[in-house]
């Protein structure tokens, strides 16, 4: 069997070679050479500056001393366009004489205050910021969140308008929910598409890794660009509905000298707060007052703060070394990093080794740009038992951690509640000793990931403006883990301990090719791009045995899958054809149109969906009446429209397929004397197809006072229809009671604003402030085909306490995951009356009086920060706020006195003393709290010694605090809550691994 990639690659190579050969003969007479030098304001040479002959693709870049030479320039009057990231582009007229070298006077580039000329990474290319027509925001290294940042997404947390990033908790490598503009899907994934150096990476969860992004070293990242509206994302068609994040890593610079950068960050993390539970004396008093005989008898004599027993101050070291420079024509960057991060939960730590190599030479007289990126990482996780976090909150504080009594010997000497019948067995309903959970479990994984690609950009000679781009890449992940616990571990008591392995492989391969044509016709610039993309995701799972601690198989060995193998492979193939047309009239009127046809293996036989977009921008600043106006330094209007798709149903790879699934050996059925592994007809939907989001966006980019104040304001509306929705099936019409269908629609509407202010700009003192704010309203507009008034919607948002209890609902006319509770009635004393609720519909009973109110998602997301420099000192901080998000405090709602527990009592939130409830009142809105908060994400103080060692070197030190403070009325541990259920929910506070406060000392040396 031929590998499809080889076939495709060979074809493309032939194509490129053929073109080169056929064109090589097409020489042209009458050319000359241009040379010159580009400097900065201090008259020092600027390396890496792009110098282009206007209207052609002829050009080059400056070398280390800022000089350049361009040969083969057609004779005649020409204009040079000199551009560099962060500097204003200048144009220079020259006359080229055939066969001669024309020396151009040195050009000085001015630093670009508004960064309008900055190259912004967009889909399949870069654009000048001033040419953008869509809602695109790029955060580069200078603006990143500082301090102990170990996962890439934390670099921009709070920095980008319209982007809500919520970490799952304080565990090292913890997963994050990234929501761009409110999330346009309901059951399908709401994660944005993440592309690292041109490789769309696999966001599938990997066994043994809580967060696939944690395998990327943030120190290697140069910039993160967020594409938010459809005109910028639609070129990614199928996966673009929830936005696109483009990550660009650092690379070497042409002609640069050899540099070494070494940095180290040393941190201490400390728990900020514990869940407010009763102490031993309070607890004892409560049980003695309210408990049954068996409960009173279960009380111990100790005084244990279980939360303090399981948490600790944790140490983190993050060391990075990189070398960069240029070896001849080959710029390079090689970096390596080592992260050792301890969690504040005992025995929880992570070790990450990373390495990256980038080579980016420009060959063949500047015609061939090569970009090779290789990244590798290796993480050793030591998970500890995170169930201990919840167990510690609810464990009897009168018990000691360990006991020498003989009856506890089978449990390793740890105190455990035993069955009240006195049979010496565990009490199956009681919590387990939290310290034992941690100490008697070894839960480790090793996760490896490599991402790499080779990108060739070839300017086809003699066809001015035409280039071909080929990108081949991969993203490979391996997860391996072991879970073991001794025979004395109560958590695996029935299984006699555990000794298990697990494994998962993810292979993602990519082939992309596009052609690009760029031409200037008088005042009009045209760029046309057309390409093809093929990506294959393979997810292999291994079927493994369940063992006891001694390694013997517990109960029975696993059976192979239907095909006889002990692995299962899921494959998703995406194939797309895309094109983009950019038109620029006099740098004033900008038009962008894109179109993508995307195919997915998830839908069959109708694989393809079609996603167009269009945008127009009017750069008013370019008009004569504003050109010379200093007060208004920039003004641009943008409007855009586009459609994007969604096909990511997570684990459901073949929703269209009628098939039968084989049961495991533990779900056999006996007929007569034989047991049968059964075959089940699985639910499927032959008509399943694309979810489509239509986005309307209008924005203004502004700059005032010579660029001292600049930013943008965007309004948007995003309508999703044919929602991929896991919803109920009419009974008897399918092969389950629910499945994936294209039903329903929802809308996100919002406003985003960004303001950057250079408050003080001076020789010594500089103060800049950046602010961003987002209002987003998410509303479900349709959920069923019948529009039945009987439909309360789909209950979601499971809670702890009781099986299957939910507190949220997806209903038409409301935000996704709106709370659905009963309205509490309060007594004269202001205390809630147990079990008494408002009869909202006046029918005499209150069992049916649930109402919808508030949601876990914030209405407003605000971010901001300031950066002050004074001589070598630097002070920066980042603030984030969410407003209007509500939280169901599940910790409090479980705090009723439960007299029914037999032979044990669990500790309670202090709430138990306030309400005095004796039965569960899980549906009371008494437990719904406003979760609005303001958090100081980080504060950093640094000092730069400058060239302390020798010329060209740099030494800086910094001191940073993460999670400095949180201001909130919320009574629980932390008002920022996301639960990674399917789909993830916001606003239900069960138990969260606390986010610590972290103090970091950093040292950075550049040679």
């Amino acid at each position, binding site marked *: 069997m031929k590998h*499809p990639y080889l076939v*495709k690659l060979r074809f*493309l190579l032939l*194509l490129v070679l*053929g*073109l080169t050969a*056929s064109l090589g003969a097409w020489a042209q007479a009458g050319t000359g050479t241009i040379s010159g030098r580009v400097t900065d304001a201090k008259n020092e040479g600027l390396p890496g500056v792009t110098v282009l002959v206007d209207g052609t693709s002829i050009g080059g870049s400056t070398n280390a001393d800022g000089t350049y030479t361009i040969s083969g320039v057609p004779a005649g009057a020409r204009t040079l366009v000199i551009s560099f990231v962060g500097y204003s582009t200048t144009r220079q007229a020259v006359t080229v004489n055939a066969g001669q070298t024309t020396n151009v006077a040195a050009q000085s580039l001015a630093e670009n205050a508004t960064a309008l000329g900055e190259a912004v990474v967009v889909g399949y290319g870069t654009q000048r910021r001033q040419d953008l027509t869509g809602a695109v925001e790029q955060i580069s290294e200078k603006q990143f969140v500082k301090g102990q940042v170990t996962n890439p997404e934390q670099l921009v947390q709070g920095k980008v308008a319209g982007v809500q990033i919520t970490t799952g908790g304080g565990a090292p490598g913890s997963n994050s929910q990234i929501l761009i503009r409110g999330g346009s899907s309901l059951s399908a994934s709401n994660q944005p598409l993440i592309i690292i150096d041109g490789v769309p990476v696999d966001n599938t969860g990997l066994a043994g890794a809580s967060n696939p992004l944690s395998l990327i070293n943030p120190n290697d990242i140069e910039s993160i660009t967020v594409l938010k509206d459809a005109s910028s994302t639609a070129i990614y068609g199928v996966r673009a509905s929830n936005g696109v994040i483009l990550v660009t890593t650092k690379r070497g610079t042409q002609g640069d000298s050899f540099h070494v950068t070494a940095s180290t960050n040393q941190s201490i993390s400390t728990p900020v707060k514990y869940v407010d539970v009763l102490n031993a004396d309070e607890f004892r008093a409560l049980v003695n007052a309210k408990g*049954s005989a068996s409960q009173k008898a279960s009380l111990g004599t100790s005084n244990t703060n279980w939360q303090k027993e399981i948490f600790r101050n944790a140490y983190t070291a993050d060391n990075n070394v990189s070398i960069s420079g240029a070896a001849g024509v080959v710029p390079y960057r090689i970096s390596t990093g080592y992260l050792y991060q301890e969690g504040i939960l005992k025995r929880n730590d992570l070790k990450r080794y990373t390495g990256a190599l980038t080579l980016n030479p420009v060959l063949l007289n500047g015609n061939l740009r090569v970009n090779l990126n290789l990244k590798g990482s290796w993480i050793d996780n030591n998970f500890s038992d995170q169930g201990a976090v919840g167990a510690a909150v609810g464990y009897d504080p009168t018990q000691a951690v360990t006991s020498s009594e003989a009856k506890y010997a089978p449990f390793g000497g740890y105190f455990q509640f035993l069955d009240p019948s006195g*049979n010496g*067995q*565990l009490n*199956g309903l009681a919590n387990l000793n939290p310290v034992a959970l941690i100490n008697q479990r070894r839960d480790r994984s090793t996760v490896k990931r490599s991402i790499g690609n080779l990108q060739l950009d070839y300017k086809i000679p003699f066809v001015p403006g035409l280039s071909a781009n080929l990108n081949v890449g991969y993203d490979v992940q391996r997860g391996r883990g072991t879970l073991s616990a001794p025979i004395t571990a109560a958590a695996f008591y029935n299984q006699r301990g555990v000794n298990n392995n697990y494994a998962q492989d993810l292979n993602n391969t990519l082939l992309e*090719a596009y052609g690009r044509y760029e031409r200037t016709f008088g005042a009009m610039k045209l760029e046309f791009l057309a390409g093809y993309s093929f990506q294959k995701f393979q997810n292999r799972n291994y079927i493994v045995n369940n063992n006891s601690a001694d390694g013997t198989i517990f*109960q*029975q060995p696993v059976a192979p*899958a*239907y*095909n006889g193998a002990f692995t*299962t492979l899921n494959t998703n193939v995406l194939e797309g054809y895309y094109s983009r047309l950019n038109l620029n009239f006099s740098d004033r009127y900008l038009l962008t149109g894109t179109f993508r046809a995307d*195919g997915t*293996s998830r839908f*069959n036989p109708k694989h393809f969906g079609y996603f167009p977009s269009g945008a127009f921008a009017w750069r008013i600043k370019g008009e004569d009446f504003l050109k010379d106006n200093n007060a208004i330094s920039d003004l641009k209007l943008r409007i855009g429209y586009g459609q994007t798709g969604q096909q990511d149903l997570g684990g459901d790879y*073949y929703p269209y*397929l009628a*098939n039968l699934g*084989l*049961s*495991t050996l*533990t*779900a*056999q059925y*006996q*007929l*007569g004397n034989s*047991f049968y592994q*059964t*075959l*089940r*007809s699985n639910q*499927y939907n032959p*008509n399943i197809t694309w979810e489509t989001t239509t986005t309307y966006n209008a924005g203004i980019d502004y700059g005032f006072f010579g660029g001292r104040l600049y930013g943008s304001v965007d309004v948007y509306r995003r309508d999703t229809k044919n929602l991929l929705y896991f919803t*109920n099936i*009419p*009974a*008897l*019409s*399918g092969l389950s*009671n*629910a499945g994936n269908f294209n039903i329903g629609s929802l809308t996100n509407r919002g406003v985003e604003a960004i303001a950057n202010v250079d408050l003080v700009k001076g020789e010594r003192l500089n103060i800049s402030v950046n602010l961003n704010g987002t209002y987003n309203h998410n509303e479900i507009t349709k959920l069923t*085909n019948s529009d*039945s008034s*009987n*439909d309360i919607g789909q209950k979601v948002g499971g809670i702890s306490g*009781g099986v*299957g209890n939910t507190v949220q609902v997806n209903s038409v006319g409301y935000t996704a995951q709106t709370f659905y509770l009963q309205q509490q009635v309060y007594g004269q004393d202001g205390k809630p009356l147990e079990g008494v609720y408002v009869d909202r519909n006046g029918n005499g*009973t209150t069992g*049916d009086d649930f109402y919808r109110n508030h949601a876990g998602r914030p209405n407003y997301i605000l971010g901001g920060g300031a950066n002050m420099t004074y001589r070598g000192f630097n002070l920066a901080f980042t603030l984030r706020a969410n407003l209007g998000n509500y939280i169901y405090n599940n910790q409090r709602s479980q705090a009723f006195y*439960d007299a*029914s527990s*037999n032979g044990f009592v669990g500790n309670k939130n202090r709430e138990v003393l306030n309400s005095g409830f004796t039965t569960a009142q899980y549906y009371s809105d008494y437990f719904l709290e406003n979760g609005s908060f303001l958090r100081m994400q980080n504060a950093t103080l640094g000092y730069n010694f400058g060239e302390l060692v020798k010329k060209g070197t740099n030494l800086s030190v910094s001191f940073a605090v993460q999670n400095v403070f949180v201001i909130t009325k919320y009574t629980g541990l932390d008002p920022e809550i996301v639960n990674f259920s399917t789909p993830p929910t916001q606003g239900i506070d069960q138990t969260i691994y606390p986010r610590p406060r972290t103090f970091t000392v950093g040292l950075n040396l550049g040679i």
Partner: protein
Amino acid sequence: MQRNFTRTLGMLALAAGLAAASSCTKDLNQTPDYSANAEVVYSDPAQIQQVLARLYATFAVSGQQGPAGQPDITGIDEGFSNYLRQYWQIQEVTTDEAVIGWADGSLPKLNTNQWDANNEFVRATYDRVFYEISLCNEFIRQTSDANLSKRGLASADANAVRTYRDEARVLRALCYWHAIDLFGGGPFATEADAVGTVPQYKKGSDMFTYVESELKAVDAAGLLLAPRAVYGRADKAVCWTLLTKLYLNAKVYTGTDHATDAVTYANKVLGAGYTLSPTYSWLFLADNGQSAAKNEIIFPINFDGIKTQTYGGMTYLVHAPAGGLVNLDSLGISSGWGGLRTKPALTSLFPGGAKGRSDARQGSFFTRGQKSSVDTLTLFTNGYLVLKYKNVTSTGGSGSDAKVNGGSGNFTDTDFPMFRLADVQLMYAEALLRGGTGGTAGTALDMVNAVRKRSGAAQLASVQLSDILDERGRELYWEGHRRTDLIRFGKYTTGYNWAFKGGTPTGKDIEAFRTIFPIPNTDRAVNSNLPQNPGY
């Protein structure tokens, strides 16, 4: 020259595009390597039998990955919503026989007869019933004579498959009977309705006609296995027992009495060679599929501690009533769930109540550390325990997953006797007392006394219709019959109360419409053909 180039380029690009497109479009056709396709499965008699086994398994397990995982239905905890667990719960917890202490969702509303159309347990029961019907429809469709000949099965194989198909029809009829009994009708589809068809509504009396005709047709075809041929299969006796149940309750379902038909089919079962288990308690032990108890069981739902694991079914029935001072080893399990108890209404049917031991059937009651009355629903100590189902054997051994056998102590071997001879004997007697012909009052008395004799209960001199309800209570308590029986005897909604009926501790009358449950709103929201039952 430039034009030529442009053309060349265009052609090349086009060729590249087409080549890439043709090779890759194939890549868009992906199928899993680990699942089976219907053409293959239904061409192989052995695999067809595996699909048939799945139709039976729906009552026992909750998905394809015991004890939990790859669930059959979603929207509710998998083990919680298992078919047998839900069916048992809705038949028992809503009556005078059982009380459940957990505050999971709207579970307490079942206890207090205050359910509404949003009750997730009513929904789970409904979803399991119709899920099984869907599976049966698919099986019957795939094994049609046309498909069998198309797939070229040998004639002996085809005949075996035709028997499977008729078993599937019996199982489907069983589920439609549950739909009639619980919901007074509901959506209706057969193998003739392709997957994706939104079904029409059929009211209970019409569904009754359909079930009756199906069972009679299957019976007449004669393809079902002979009674007792293979333990666990839906044989002729299962078909007859189901018809007996249908006819005995026909007055409730259709308004027309079918007592004589009930006698007719009960007679067939009585003549099929079943014998009462010598010891009452054996019927509910881990080896009830092997011991002499097997000879009484007409239709079991089979469980195995190692091979058929679930958090519903028998796992639930053994664990949920265990707690307090119960010795777990005596039940062959390692933990109790502390949920199920009974009300005095049940134990007072026996001489001496829960603590009497003159009747072997009283042996299940556990009173130590428990109090008789149920004053607080959630307090496990309120109400005596019923330790009827156990994971130990008639010879003193323990189930395969019991701790002493190296297991986890979680899962049980005990089979659930859905239909058994004593039930048929009591139905026979009742049908006669209801005026059915085909027997005499004397044979009715003999049948009742035969059941009583086994447990050492005093022989009755005569038997009235009203005695039957109490005798069914004594013989069949906690076996999933109670709600249907109370309704048939007109004692479910008014005139007879028990603790927490209607939501008050002493119990009160409830609305007449509560003899059937509402059609869940979840289904009415997606199927506009479904009317709501009156009162909801």
